[in-house]
């Protein structure tokens, strides 16, 4: 009987079936892009072929890659729309900066400062993720999205009234208004809306790469573990997930908290790349920007997100030649790219044209048309 069923399956159905497990492939492509890109750009930079503009973007690109990958954990793998990722980035950035300043008083070994600050940023951001996640993860779909948006705004609003500084004895103190007891105004580290100033910029491209590798490592590993499978199965079918004994809230929360921690880490490196950082930076637009990376790279597709994050960070810079029309061009490109990647008819046409001009012509086009669509559409 078994043989018969198999024959049935292979003769009728499997023609249209899609191979699904591509972890190895996904991992090798992701790591390959990151390491290859790093080596390539280091060489180009050493050879003097890259201008200041692009070199200056190495760290932010890495940060955005890391943010895109971590947001993918929520949007792609857990299947929930989050519009407040920048909030966690902010928490990580400001707590990481604080930690770096505290450590900076007694330490001068930068790698240790960076690592401890990033871990601290991740810890605080994951706590924020946990506190926020517990009440809201019972919500569904767009309602969850609006609540994440709300929390992102609340975090930022809160940052606007948060003041930190060292008092005379080098101890950290904080307040919710301008005057912190015992702290000279010049010794303030974080000053509400003015943000953090006087941060020692320690971030380098290499740290950026390490951050990206670590993020990708965690997310891919998680995806390919029992927890990741539980998260994805709840995404695919919540009721079936419950029916096989998966605690929906627990696994949604897990994805949310891990994602927040990674975002906090990335935020910390971002904070350490600029001597000043204002809370306004982490507004709704930044959250959306990260979401754009994820959607454009293909929801759930890690390496797609990496490429999209890198390209879309650089893109507005290359549009500087359009001067006044820069952001307009960006908007138009964004709309066109979305339509071209997601509209089925246009996509089929592009794929068709590409198949014709494809330099490596393989006669393996036996598979059905709709598949690429299906797999890329993701958890939309």
């Amino acid at each position, binding site marked *: *009987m*078994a*043989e*018969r*069923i*198999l024959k*049935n*399956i*292979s003769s*009728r*159905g*499997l023609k*249209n*079936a*899609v*191979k*699904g*497990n591509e972890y190895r492939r996904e991992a090798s492509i992701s790591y390959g892009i990151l390491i290859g890109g790093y080596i390539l750009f280091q060489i180009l930079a050493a050879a003097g072929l890259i201008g200041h503009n692009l070199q200056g973007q190495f760290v932010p690109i890495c940060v955005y890659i890391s943010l895109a990958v971590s947001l993918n954990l929520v949007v792609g793998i857990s299947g929930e729309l989050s519009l407040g990722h920048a909030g966690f980035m902010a928490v990580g950035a400001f707590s990481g900066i604080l930690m770096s300043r505290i450590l900076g008083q007694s330490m001068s070994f930068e790698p240790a400062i960076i690592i401890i600050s990033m871990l601290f940023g991740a810890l605080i951001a994951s706590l924020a993720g946990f506190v926020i996640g517990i009440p809201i993860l019972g919500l569904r779909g767009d309602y969850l999205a609006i609540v994440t948006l709300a929390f992102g705004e609340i975090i930022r609003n809160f940052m606007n009234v948060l003041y930190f500084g060292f008092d005379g004895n080098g101890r950290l103190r904080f307040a919710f208004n301008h005057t912190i007891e015992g702290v000279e105004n010049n010794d303030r580290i974080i000053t509400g809306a003015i943000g953090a100033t006087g941060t020692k910029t320690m971030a380098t491209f290499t740290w950026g790469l390490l951050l990206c590798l670590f993020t990708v490592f*965690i997310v891919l*590993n*998680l995806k390919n*573990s*029992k*927890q*990741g*499978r*539980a998260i*994805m*199965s709840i*995404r*695919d*079918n*919540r*009721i*079936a*997930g*419950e*029916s*096989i*004994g*998966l*605690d*929906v809230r627990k696994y949604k929360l*897990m994805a949310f908290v*891990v994602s927040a921690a990674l975002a906090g880490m990335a935020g910390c490196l971002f904070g350490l790349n600029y001597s000043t950082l204002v809370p306004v930076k982490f507004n709704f637009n930044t959250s959306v920007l990260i979401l754009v990376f994820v959607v454009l790279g293909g929801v*759930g597709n890690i390496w797609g997100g990496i490429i999209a994050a890198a390209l879309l960070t650089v893109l507005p810079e290359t549009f500087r030649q359009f001067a006044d029309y820069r952001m307009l061009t960006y908007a138009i490109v964004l709309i066109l790219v979305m339509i071209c990647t997601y509209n089925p008819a246009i996509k089929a046409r592009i794929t068709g044209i590409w198949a014709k001009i494809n330099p490596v012509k393989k006669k393996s086009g036996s598979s059905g048309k709709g598949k690429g669509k*299906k797999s890329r559409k993701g*958890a939309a």
Partner: protein
Amino acid sequence: MADKKDMRDERHDIDISDSGHAYENRQEIYYNDNVGGRAVFVDSKEQYDPDEPYNDQVFIPEKDRDKAPILQVKNLGIDFGGLTAVDNFNLTLGRTEIGGLIGPNGAGKTTIFNMLTKVYEPTRGEIFFDGKSTKGMTTVDINKAGMARTFQNIRLFDKLTVEENIKVALHHTTNYGLIDGMLHTPKYRHEEFRIRKEAMKYLKIFGMTKTADYRAGSLPYGAQRRLEIMRALATKPKLLLLDEPAAGMNPSETSELMETIREIRDRFQIAVFLIEHDMSLVMGICEGIVVLNYGRVIAKGWPEEIQSNPKVIEAYLGKSRGKMEEEEEKEKADIEKALRKGRLESAASGKPDRKEGE
């Protein structure tokens, strides 16, 4: 975050490694009266009286009488708004019984499954699963207690592979924590290796090992149904609830399925309770059958009894007994059509319904 190692490891400690052989030895198993034989009722002459509140212990196959029943349902009922969907439902299911739940469309069969698995909270009545009341338990608790189900409109994890679908079901017996999962420690590797082998063993039951790497959502319909059963089974249940397992299958697939269900019961020594419109399957493997109409039990008994029960025929045909013979002929054709149609309908409704859930 290591998950509590629960009792289900020991639950069916049956070696399923040689499932390949099981198929070869099938002949033997099916003709073994002790295990696969037809249920014998204590007093089969006595007709089931639906109006008597709780009269039901007697309907247990002989082989299960010395063991406590796996499931006892007393006066179960549920209202939606003012509408009573199910009322006064009683059931006792033997430890290794294959029970059937039939009835016309909209009779409330799936609602009963949903109450058993706590997708819906019953308005009235009690459910005792494995001797314990399920009051206050959630769907998750129910599964952990040892009840697993499939769905009428298939609910697979579409974007996961076939193998992963089984592995998810093995979640609670996979013994490593979040940190192991994120860092892929040796413990992770060891456990993953083990559950991969175990998942393959489950896939072997339906001969689906070669499809292991395909996305579940891209499988043909019949294979999806089988995978769903495997997934439920992999949670190591004591009771397996199957909601129209043969919907959308052709007759030969159905008879294969029938044999496999029986084999699963025999090998794992679990109870199976199934909803089905395909009478050949129901009559072929069910030991006890409950017939539901308008949310109420109208008949209980063994297959032959049910087949000849006037109330059942009335439920399916409407009041046709007193009519002319030719009309009866026509009605009979209709019944067959209706039964077949029921099957097709439920098959057709599978896909669009699933979309809603996403």
